[in-house]
């Protein structure tokens, strides 16, 4: 049994598997749990981890928090999300930021961060232990300031998207359980709308430091 704080909420995870408990090692806390998740008895770690992730994500969904597919980076207290379909190179691009800017970059999550919409003023991004094949995650949180939608391209280009252009692409990257009721989808549409009103960029990029410089200059010219 382990108690973990994820996205500012406390979960007790009851599991007989030491591997599952290790998943939450960096997130342990002594606060009383708000929700208890009993780990199902599934044949392998991935399936068990996914089942816990789904239950936690649904509970957080009911508490103004959504899981988004993307990399959450804290760059000098500015939260930036890189999002794209799997295999586009989000992690590779973020690691180039780390290579270029060193300790100014903290990768809070490399695949599935949580975003809290509790506050009317700001969207807060949180680390989570589900962080993709590179396993990039560091407990922490940051105010979200910009979103970059990546696609591979032969040359590096960046443009800021209008909220209307950004909305469908952002909505697609918010976790929606199959068969979610209409009201749950409506809630996610509201969340996507708030994200679309942040500076959102479309970055066509090569795997290069030049792509990092281009994105950095465009983002910090706006925020």
């Amino acid at each position, binding site marked *: 049994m382990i108690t973990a704080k994820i996205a500012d909420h406390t979960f007790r995870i009851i599991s007989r598997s030491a591997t599952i408990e290790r998943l939450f090692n960096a997130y342990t806390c002594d606060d009383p749990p708000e929700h208890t998740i009993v780990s199902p008895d599934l044949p392998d770690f991935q399936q068990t981890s996914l089942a816990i992730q789904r239950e936690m994500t649904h509970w957080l969904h009911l508490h103004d928090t959504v899981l988004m597919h993307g990399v959450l980076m804290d760059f000098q207290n500015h939260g930036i999300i890189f999002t794209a379909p799997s295999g586009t190179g989000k992690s590779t691009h973020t690691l180039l930021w780390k290579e270029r800017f060193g300790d100014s970059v903290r990768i809070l999550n490399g695949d599935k961060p949580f975003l809290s919409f509790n506050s009317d003023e700001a969207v807060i991004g949180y680390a989570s232990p589900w962080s993709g094949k590179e396993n990039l995650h560091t407990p922490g949180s940051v105010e979200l300031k910009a979103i970059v939608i990546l696609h591979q391209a032969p040359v590096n280009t960046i443009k800021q998207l209008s909220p209307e252009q950004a909305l469908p692409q952002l909505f697609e990257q918010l976790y929606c359980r199959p*068969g*979610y009721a209409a009201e749950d*989808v409506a809630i996610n*549409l509201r969340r996507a709308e708030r994200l679309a009103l942040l500076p959102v960029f479309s970055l066509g990029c090569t795997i290069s430091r030049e792509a990092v410089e281009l994105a950095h200059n465009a983002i910090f010219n706006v925020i």
Partner: protein
Amino acid sequence: MKLREGVILQKVLRSRLAVTTGDAAADFHGMVKANETADRVLHLLQEDTTRDRIVDTIFAEYDAPRQVIEKDVDALLDALRDHGMLQ
């Protein structure tokens, strides 16, 4: 013909969107953006109706040539069909 159960209409960023949910979204969440006239068509499609009845209603309510309305209604119905939003 009407909107399939599970299709919601929601105003987002000053536009009305039709979005699939529930079983209608088994594969993906389709999204169709509507202008003012299309918004009216979507509301008409909440009840069982026909293409011609929709065109008649819009022609009576909006100051536009019937041919233009027919073209717009057909384009919207095609988009809704493509996204599996009609039953």
